């Protein structure tokens, strides 16, 4: 397809769309596996952290 100079300029000036800007594709199965591993590592970090028995969860959260 031939483009005029004006069309080329418009294309160059056009904002990037979501699909254009993200290097694609990543492998969804691998991403899910990596996300699970990340969460397990995070949980492992927290498990190692000693918390006194009377430290109740911050559920009734007020600043």
């Amino acid at each position, binding site marked *: 397809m031939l483009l005029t100079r004006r069309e080329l300029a418009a294309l160059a000036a056009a904002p990037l769309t979501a699909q254009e*800007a993200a290097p694609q594709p990543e492998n969804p199965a691998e991403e899910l596996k990596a996300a699970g591993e990340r969460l397990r590592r995070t*949980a492992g970090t927290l498990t190692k952290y000693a918390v006194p028995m009377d430290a109740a969860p911050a559920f009734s959260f007020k600043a």
Partner: protein
Amino acid sequence: MAKVGDGVFFATVVELSARLRAKEFSSEELTRAFLDRLEKLGPRYNALALLVRDRAIGQAKDADDEIKRGLLRGPLQGIPFGAKDLLSLARLPTTWGARPYAQQVFDYDASVLTRLARARAVLTGKLSMVELAGGGGYRYAAASMFGPGLNPWDPTRWSGGSSSGSGSAVAAGLVPFAIGSETWGSILTPSAYCGVTGLRPTYGLVSRYGAMALSWTMDKIGPMCRSAEDCAHVLRVISGGDSKDPGSAGKTFYYGPQYVPALKDLRVGFATSDFEEWIEPAGRPDSVKSLEILRGLGLQMKEALLPEFPYSAVAGLIIDAEGSAVFEPLIESGQVDELADQKQIAGLKAGLEIRVKDYLKAMRIRRLIQQELRKLFIGFDVLVTPATRGPATQITQALDRRSAGLAKPRSRGLSELGAAGNLAGLPALCLPCGFAEGLPVAIQLVGRPFAENTLLAIGHAFQQRTDFHRRKPPGV
């Protein structure tokens, strides 16, 4: 009346309000000028989600009518603004930046928008955002149905997230102020990247009714403006108790810089390592200078150190667990796969598998963090750090690889103040403090709960001495 000139686009709310009252132009004229600009330039930065022209002109006419009758409500009366597309606006699309919600319509307004309408501020448009405010974690700036937020200072750079459109729109003079939201970094990052002044209020000070939930225990809504003083005026209007938000603190903010102790009596904590090692080299010179400016204001500057906690792990796990619970129907329906960012899709799915014991552990450590920060603030009134690790990233850069290659600072300093402050619900003010490679850099001030007046008083004094918040992106 004089014609609305280009000078209005980068004026502060305070200045525009004075000119409206002096009848230099009407709210309708001002609103039409901003609507045209937002419609024309918003798409250039992928900042515009929805223009609400007819509604805005109606609101502007109402404001004009009141001003004409001498019924003056406050500085926001007749001033246009934009709102992150995470806030519902009755009978119009509210997309949350995510393709699965592209057709979503609510039949009520978010409390924040109701309050702004009562103050006769004029909503001109909904502004783009990272899909689902980044719940699940995202790798690319393009994680939005609107495309990546492009930075007015350099459109090859990101405007930050998740309040991307709010940051771009204020920086490019498309709105005088915008509303953003933060769970962890979503007001401060785009404010810093775009060179605007952003305020993350204390948890519970601003109602979240009608806003998309990402983390019930961490979400906050706040203003993104041209100055600290403007942030104060917007916060004054949007704060206040709301029985429709279970997290509401039932408190209202009143702007009263006169009630803040003299600056010479305020103790500001900082860590040299944050400014000389943690931040990327390009951002160091102006960030270090900002400490001198703060010192020059008479503030007592003292070295500080955050208590040792796994802040990022705690914040990340809580947001992942709550975010995945919020979006469980989306995940279970399979529509989550329509999101733009693979990492985010995976993060949301994986978050459903978080064990109860791990969430509880995170929330228990959070309790300790709150207690220890309370103790830290006995010795300090305010803590200051660079707002981000460096200036805006390239649009195509993988966001989770930003710190790769950077040496670990010798001290942890206050570098995890972003996670810590959000976990403890503390207010933060982002102040532009200079430039690196032609891009804005900023500092953040963090204070005790409900100490917004202290932050704003320091911010206002800082901005009386500097003009970074008044600079315009080139070519805009």
